[in-house]
């Protein structure tokens, strides 16, 4: 089914909320000598132990889910297709495979290479593009 809706407004709303949330988290960070402590507790003595990197991580996961919802709103149906895995996948399946695979790429990098995860992140992006293109 090919149906296109006006997706620009929901997309703008989602992105605006994401930016606002990240900005809110940044404002929570303590500033010492004019520099932000990026790894300090966002809510000191809170049992959930929020830190800026983990808050950013979960915000980005929720952003991805929201973007998938906007994509679904724009083009309903989930775009099912049979890729190289030889079974039908939808956009949601492809996002799940991308995220799960990325988690393992990061773990493998940590275990085999070391703590610098930027290359693992780059590899995960390439992997995710591959999944969305071919799976």
């Amino acid at each position, binding site marked *: 089914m090919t149906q296109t809706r006006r997706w620009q407004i929901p997309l703008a709303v989602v992105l605006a909320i994401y930016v606002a949330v990240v900005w809110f988290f940044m404002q929570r960070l303590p500033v010492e000598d004019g520099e932000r402590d990026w790894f300090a507790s966002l809510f000191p003595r*809170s049992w*959930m*132990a929020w*830190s800026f990197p983990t808050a950013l991580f979960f915000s980005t996961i929720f952003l991805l889910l929201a973007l998938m919802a906007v994509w679904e709103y724009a083009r309903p149906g989930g775009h099912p297709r049979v890729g190289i895995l030889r079974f039908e996948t939808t956009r949601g399946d492809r996002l799940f495979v991308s995220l*799960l695979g990325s988690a393992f790429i990061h*773990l493998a990098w*940590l*275990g085999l290479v070391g703590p610098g995860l930027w290359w693992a992140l780059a590899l995960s992006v390439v992997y995710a593009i591959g999944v969305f293109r071919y799976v």
Partner: protein
Amino acid sequence: MEKTWNNRAWFMVLPVLLLVAFSAVIPLMTVVNYSVQDTFGGNQFFWAGTEWFEEILSSDRFWLAMGRNLAFSAIILAIEIPLGIFIALNMPRKGWGVPVCLVLMALPLLIPWNVVGTIWQVFGRIDIGLLGRTLYTLGIDYNYVNDPIDAWVTVIVMDVWHWTSLVVLLCYAGLVSIPEAYYQAAKIDGASRWAVFRYIQLPKMSRVLLIAILLRFMDSFMIYTEPFVVTGGGPGNSTTFLSIDLVKMAIGQFDLGPAAAMSIIYFLIILAMSWVFYTVMTNYDAEKK
């Protein structure tokens, strides 16, 4: 018929989304937060980055527990699946024997896990346990408290006793759904007992067998209560599976950071396996249609 698309229907899943958020998402977020920080109590946390993940991934303790867990799952699957099929094939299909067998098979499944552990802990004791005392009287050197092999045998036999019934009941459900005409046709063709099993019963049981393998694998991979009650993970660490090790680390040692990192790795493995099994099952259904 043209399908109606109405994305507002997604709002109907909001209640369950809230439920999952409070029971799964918020605890998971907390574990992720703990996995990158260190704490000495009092809700004070200090950034540790990926240190705990590196520590877990390079620790022999984690990989040995993982190896034990995989070995345990492989052994119990290798025993329970063939045994379950064998018992299901030999169960009566009609008459008074059916309810009797079904009730007997269902009994172990109704017993709580910690009670199963307690039963086998007492059963295997060489001073007062029926099994342990009998083996001791027969001159067999059996002591699950001191001997790692005896501990493994006890834990495996206990799991087989507890869970083979599930495989039996699933296989039995698959077997009774086979129409009588299939057997009549096989009889006319002069098919052997093996041919009937290989070409009629096994294919008809394949779906329930897949479910049985999935359930038993996931369950055995997450096993905690029964071995913890019987052996407490010992002797030494010989029956310390991933979940037991995790609890020791988190609650026994209060190493919340490493325990959280280990939980996440454990969770990702379970998630990946669940996805593989789910995909195999849904595609199996699609192929059947």
